[in-house]
């Protein structure tokens, strides 16, 4: 009985007793979830357009952030460095398409997946080779990102919100909105969706696959850059950030590999679930649950919906 009480009743009593703490945890989960969602968004963009499960997205985040910081430390003004980093991400997208993807057209998914592992390793080595392996500090001030926190007296206590987190949430929302408009309204966006539906049909109406792939990898690179800036500002910029890509995987399966709203909703569910789970239920089993809690949430969802919350229905024929 005691165990059941601890699992099913006590956490909610705690939430009721200290609503300010609950709101604080919820907010932190929300921000974390937003950033997971951004990484997942990069995955989804590439998976939708090329069917490649891009494991390198996490390292692209680190690589973009490192390039930005590295250029700034080398004396380039912050916004010029930002522009140059965008150029570098474009060059990266072009190179990947040219060197890796084009020779591997029509290979099984697992081979392409493996190829992105190759890219990951190469980028880790290359990034450390060029910029050094030691952690760096994100140039928040030079980019005019606010710091400090806003404290509210609310819910019978104090809730403090980091200014940076607020900006992160706003920027992430804007970016998702822009991508949604881009996908549904522009010519290239329509071409992207056509490619996602069927490669061969898209080719037959004159859409250039190569061009589309460069564009999606570049878009994923931009998403990676934004993610890198905000993650980097929260901790520091180092290759340890790479593990956050693994955190984005449950977000992906929760939302479905092909759905942009899925990535966002999945990210929020995972982010909030993980924080609340660790805070209220974690102590019962001896903390550190955030290492696997997200995966268990995702697994439970998957058992009921094997294609994720928003994924396209899987139709199998013999």
């Amino acid at each position, binding site marked *: 009985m005691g165990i059941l009480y601890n699992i099913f009743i006590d956490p909610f009593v705690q939430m009721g007793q200290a609503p300010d703490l609950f709101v604080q945890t919820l907010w932190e989960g929300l921000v974390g979830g937003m950033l997971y969602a951004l990484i997942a968004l990069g995955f989804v963009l590439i998976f939708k357009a090329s069917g490649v499960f891009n494991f390198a997205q996490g390292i692209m985040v680190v690589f973009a952030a490192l390039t930005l910081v590295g250029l700034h430390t080398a004396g380039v003004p912050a916004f010029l460095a930002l522009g140059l980093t965008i150029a570098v991400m474009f060059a990266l997208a072009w190179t990947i398409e040219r060197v890796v993807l084009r*020779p591997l057209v029509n290979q099984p998914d697992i081979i392409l997946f493996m190829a992105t592992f190759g890219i*990951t390793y190469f980028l880790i080595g290359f990034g450390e*080779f060029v910029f050094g392996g030691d952690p760096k500090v994100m140039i928040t001030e030079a980019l005019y990102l606010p710091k400090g926190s806003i404290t509210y007296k609310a819910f019978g206590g104090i809730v403090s919100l980091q200014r940076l987190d607020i900006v992160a949430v706003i920027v992430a929302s804007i970016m998702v909105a822009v991508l949604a408009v881009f996908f549904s309204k522009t010519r290239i966006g329509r071409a992207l969706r056509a490619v996602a539906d069927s490669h061969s049909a898209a080719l037959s109406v004159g859409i250039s696959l190569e061009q589309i792939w460069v564009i999606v990898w570049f878009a994923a690179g931009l998403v990676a850059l934004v993610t890198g800036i905000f993650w980097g500002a929260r901790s520091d910029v180092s290759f340890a950030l790479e593990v956050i890509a693994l955190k984005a995987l449950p977000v992906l399966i929760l939302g479905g590999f092909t759905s942009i709203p899925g990535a966002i909703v999945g990210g929020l569910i995972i982010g909030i679930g993980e924080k609340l789970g660790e805070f209220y239920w974690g102590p019962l089993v001896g903390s*550190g*649950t955030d290492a696997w809690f997200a995966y268990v949430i*995702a697994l439970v969802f998957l058992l009921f919906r094997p294609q994720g919350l928003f994924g396209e229905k899987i139709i199998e024929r013999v």
Partner: protein
Amino acid sequence: MFYREAGQFKTSYASDQAVFPILQDRIGVFIILAIAFVVIPLTGNDFIINAVMIPFLVFSLAAIGLNLLTGYTGQLSLGTGAFMGVGAYACYKLTTIYPGVNIIIWVIASGFFAAAVGAVFGLPSLRIKGFYLAIATLAAQFFLEWCFIRIPWLYNYNVSAAIEVPQRELFGIIVTGPRASAETRYYIVLSIVVVMTWMASNLMHGRIGRMWMAVRDMDIAAELMGIRLLPTKLLAFAISSFYCGVSGALMVFLWYGGAESAVFNINQSFTILFMIIIGGLGSLLGSFLGAALIYILPIILRFVPPQLGIPLHAATIEHITFMTIGALIVFFLIAEPAGLARLWQIGKQKLRVWPFPY
């Protein structure tokens, strides 16, 4: 010219269906075994045996395990490292609870614990497929890794939270622990790997292997043909985890001599996955070739620049190693997506018709 099956007539079904139907192949296998059992222990120094051969064999066994699941049954798994961990921790618990029992028996028995855990985590495979399943197995990876840290009973409440291999003897010879000789450990690892490879090969040529391959090629079609999916997939998970578990136990008991949970982290799973993809999915030979390439290549890369007299910083070498591995993975995938085993087959085919082009 030398490698040709002309004149070798098969007069019985047994010889027709043999694993190595060609005489030259049988000789080749025999030579490889002879080198492994006789030449290497006699000529190799401690470095070759300890740092190259034993790890190579351990990784090969794990790669075979994953290949049974991913290559033959088509179930992508990223939990290999954790299943190896289950084997290692099970073996450690068994031998500390019953110190009198032969350690080899416990190494094999620990495989059964890994098999049971693997079967449990294989349950979602009936409903979840492809990359979704891969991520579901990540749940196993992270959950088990967490267990290795948070359940102190598993490492006997050690302060260091690591498992230390106790000294065990077999017929008066020290087999495990810091005082065991490299040759003894090498022989034990080699024998287990050879026997288990032989078993895997027989498994693959029999009914179970065919069932697995049918499931891999298309599971709905396999189901329509009367293969029951749940038992088949669970069996694949169980046997694959058995191999991984034994290899994990070997890794800790006969190679590392002690380990903490970080040894069985996600990177270990990825490494094994690299091995089978580079080596060749659905090929036992590929498991060995992949293990050789992925494990031995970094060792060589680390030794090449100093040998050539290029003075490089250790960290720089590390970075260049990473870049080279990444580039080589991409290169091999482009050159031959079906893996090194396929390259080997092409080479054999060329050899058959040599010196003529066709």
